[in-house]
């Protein structure tokens, strides 16, 4: 296991991981949550993250890589500080979800899975996020916004730009 000295994570996250691997009948059950929490702190799954997670769990880096590539929320490149995820699946689609997506593309000047030059925002078209009855819906990082209009969308983006956005981690 990684000692305090060698960890790439903050002391809080390292302590959390020390505990996490003990919660389950097998250590490997901590793998998916660990990768997501590591990504939350580091910004993406770097090779250093893979190496430390593999070591903590006691599996090969290859095994980590193979799991990592399966889950759509895990990324190996940095996203923007605020990752804007617009749902265009069926309920949102029929409630102008594509209009919201187009609006975000224009407003941020970026396309699907791109990052603004200042690194503040990235944009993603995503599948159903479980907010269908409040369509059209989006998430910015982990926070939900629903019943959107282009005007509401502008307000939300302005708030984040000004550092006033919600930030659940």
């Amino acid at each position: 296991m990684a000692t305090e000295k060698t960890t790439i994570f903050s002391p809080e996250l390292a302590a959390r991981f020390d505990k996490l691997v003990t919660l389950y009948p097998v250590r490997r059950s901590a793998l998916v949550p660990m990768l997501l929490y590591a990504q939350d702190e580091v910004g993406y799954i770097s090779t250093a993250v893979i190496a430390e997670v593999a070591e903590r769990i006691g599996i090969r880096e290859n095994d980590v890589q193979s799991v990592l590539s399966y889950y759509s929320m895990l990324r190996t490149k940095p996203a923007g500080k605020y990752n804007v995820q617009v749902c265009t699946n069926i309920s949102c689609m029929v409630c102008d979800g594509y209009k919201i997506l187009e609006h975000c593309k224009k407003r941020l000047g970026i396309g699907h899975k791109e990052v603004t030059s200042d690194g503040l925002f990235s944009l993603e078209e995503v599948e159903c996020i479980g907010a269908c009855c409040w369509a059209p819906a989006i998430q910015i990082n982990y926070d939900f916004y629903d019943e959107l209009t282009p005007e509401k969308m502008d307000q939300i983006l302005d708030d984040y730009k000004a550092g006033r956005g919600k930030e659940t981690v």
Partner: protein
Amino acid sequence: MPRLVSHPDEVKIISRRFGLGATDIGKYIELDGYKAVQAAISKGPEWIISEMKASGLRGRGGAGFPTGMKWSFVPKQSEKAKYVLVNGDESEPGTCKDHLIFLYDPHAVIEGTMIAGIAIGAKMGFIYLRGEYRYLLKIMEKAVADAYAKGFLGKNIFGSGVDFDIVTQTGAGAYEVGEESALMESLEGKRGVPRIKPPFPAVVGLYGGPTVINNVETIASVPHILLMSGEAYAKVGSERNGGTRLFGISGHVERPGVYELPMGYNLKKAIYDVAGGVRGGKKLKAVVPGGSSTPVLTADEIDVGLDFDQMGKAGTMLGSGGIVVLDETVCMVEFALRTIKFYQHESCGWCIPCREGTDWLKKSITRLHEGGAVDKDIDNIRYLAENMLGRTFCPLGDAAAMPTIGFVQKFRKEFEDHLNGRGCPYKHSLEREEALV
């Protein structure tokens, strides 16, 4: 924050604590919380399972398997530890009901998990939430911590001599992980590729031990059933379909939202009375009745009861309870295309009929939508989908094929209107507007 809705036809059993502050453990206890689990402890597994069987509760995850029966399949004696696994992957497009349960009544999920554990003789339960539900995971984590602090979880719960632990788990983005065997793989730290069945999870499940896997809504219904009695719960619903269900009505209705209606409630009434009818006085075109994998109904086919059997007879499925209402402005080809794009994206790639089939369907319907198809392409789409049915390793292949067949079968005319270079006649389509500029 999701908006709560209400209608006089609702029967609020599972949603009765919504909006009442029941995330607070004190409030939950005040609202009859943690009484059912104490009854379960004192009356024992046989009583629980017989109440569950009497309740007629059928799994709310989509397939509608009777819950009491599922629990009774778990062997009494087992060398390996047994587990309860709560499926909160909630990723079927059109479905957002478990979202509300986590948000407003997290302790009901905990209490239901404990009761399931007592019924099958498990000492550990897992509550798995899709990765996107981080704020709900926080709510669940706090509820679990509060339950431990009160001594409701951990060693010797309620002085019974029984130990029970609950661990909450986050996913990281994958629809397929909602399939029960893929869910177990994910919880074991692997790719969400399904396992071959048999053996069924009730016999060989998580970490090789007997495991009961239930949907969040199924589990959250359990304490209510024990409190009101299985028989009373059954009476609320229709024949062979006990109780109530959370129906999420979305799309083109005046009052979208999650409503708790008795099983067997008429779909047409749900749309017109409960959800206020089609938005803006437009005409109804179609209804996807139970999440994106359920075959579409036309406007003439919606006079049907919302339960597993009646929906089956109507040629579709009750599914996840996510009712998506489509008005006359929707292009059914574009809708079919968005649906198949989803399944193509979510196919885990393990078996060929699903991996290749969803990809071909996506390509064919894309071409058709753009006007690049001829008459026989419509038959080919249907033929391709029909040949996926029953030939895939897990039901995701069927989930992709069934709605596709439904769209072609019931809206063939709309497919034909796109042929021979004509392309999409529906101007509202944004993807098309973009393509035009």
